[in-house]
């Protein structure tokens, strides 16, 4: 099971659990209709499209309304703490939720009580909480953008809003340095997928791949284009790809989807997500083969 956990921008949504399906620009989960916009809805939607293409079951979703007060987030944390071992997902993606260090630590402890610890991915504030709580190394994969990578590289910061200025002002040429610092601080998951003008995939402190084509600058402005990468990575890992191959394919698919959608700064994220099946049909086999070859070369070296 791929289990995706996060919040939705609706005050009235109770903790909702079920299989997700995408219908145009609307996500349906156990009777609830959620617009496919920036945030966990975009992540779930991209995972739905990916799993559908891979002919895999839809993702299981735990979604709760939260307008920022953290009330819904706390319900979500408590549910995970109490139920993760029983749910026994193969892959867990933790996403938009109020970062609460103590609760995130308990979620990770709960995951370890499962017969087999799930493959744990954190993005957005779930990643902030894991780093701030000092448990980043317990996670398998993080998906920061450049400003969030600066946060991971700053040993003192507990939120990206308090990152040291000299780290925040780093441009993409300093990504290797920031990646090294994040690993040295123990603030990185085993694998990092750094999203930006040039995407980077790193594992255990070593950069394995960079991708900068096709270059679609408008993607940075579109709310949700980082969430879609996390959703695709989770789905590909669930579909049997190793995490580096999953990351390599997801970052290429995201860029290509921007190109196919003719992305502009006004494009909505569902318009990018809806072209993913065409992107997969045209490129997935080639990318997976190239990534597999690279993986074999890496193993041989």
């Amino acid at each position, binding site marked *: 099971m791929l289990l995706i956990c996060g919040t939705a921008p609706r005050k009235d949504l109770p903790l909702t659990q079920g299989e997700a399906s995408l219908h145009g620009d609307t996500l349906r989960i156990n009777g609830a209709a959620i617009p496919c916009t920036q*945030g966990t809805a975009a992540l779930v939607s991209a995972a739905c499209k990916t799993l559908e293409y891979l002919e895999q079951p839809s993702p299981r979703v735990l979604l709760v309304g939260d*307008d920022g007060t953290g009330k*819904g987030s706390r319900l979500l944390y408590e549910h995970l703490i109490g139920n993760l071992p029983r749910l026994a997902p193969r892959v867990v993606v933790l996403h938009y939720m109020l*970062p609460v260090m103590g609760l995130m630590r308990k979620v990770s402890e709960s995951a370890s009580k499962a017969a087999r610890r799930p493959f744990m991915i954190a993005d957005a504030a779930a990643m902030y909480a894991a780093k701030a709580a000092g448990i980043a190394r317990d996670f398998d994969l993080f998906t920061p953008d450049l400003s969030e990578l600066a946060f991971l590289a700053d040993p003192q910061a507990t939120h990206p*809003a*308090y990152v040291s200025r000299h780290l925040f002002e780093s441009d993409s040429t300093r990504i290797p340095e920031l990646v090294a610092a994040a690993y040295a601080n123990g603030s990185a998951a085993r694998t990092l997928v750094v999203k930006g003008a040039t995407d980077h995939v790193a594992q255990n402190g070593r950069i394995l791949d960079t991708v900068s084509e096709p270059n679609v600058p408008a993607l*940075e402005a579109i709310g949700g*284009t980082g969430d879609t990468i996390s959703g695709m990575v989770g789905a590909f890992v669930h579909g049997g790809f190793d995490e580096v191959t999953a990351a390599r394919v997801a970052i290429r698919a995201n860029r290509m989807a921007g190109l196919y959608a003719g992305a502009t*700064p006004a494009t909505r994220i569902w318009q990018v997500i809806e072209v993913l099946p065409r992107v997969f049909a045209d490129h997935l086999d080639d990318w997976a083969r190239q990534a597999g070859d690279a993986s074999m070369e890496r193993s041989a070296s």
Partner: protein
Amino acid sequence: MFFKSGKKNGFEGGGLVLFENVEEAMSGERSLKADGIENRLVAPPPELRRGCDLALEINLVEKPAVERMLRSRQVHFIDILPMKGDAELLQVVQVTDFGEAVMVKAGNMKLTFDKATGVVLNISGGGCPDIPYLHAEMLAKPLDRAPRPKEMGHTLCSLMLDRAYVQSLEIWKNGSR
């Protein structure tokens, strides 16, 4: 022991509210608890101590909500600071010109608006749960009629979005319409 900072009672917030006197600190604690905002009384570390020797530990991420709540209850406080690291919020703002649109980045938040109409085209970045909510509230509205993130948001991400919003409004009013 009651005031000792640590992890044993299960709450780690990473933020500190400093007060002039003990009465205000106690009043702050009661007010935040009444509003469901997690906090606890602590002794501030010497290097951060200003005012009295009693402070409130809060979840730093909730700084805007705490500030708003304490002000609405007229509880005076000196400052809200992180317990470690840089004491100053990021002030850096970066601007990208897309031709017909401008993207303003503050910290981990980005706001993009149409140069001609000032309409909010997209909001990206961030990770706290008020961001998708603010995204839904602000999208497709002109900047001067969109709700201000600082007034609706609860978290540091909303504070960063507010910085991007203020800068966007200034750019639009000064140059784009």
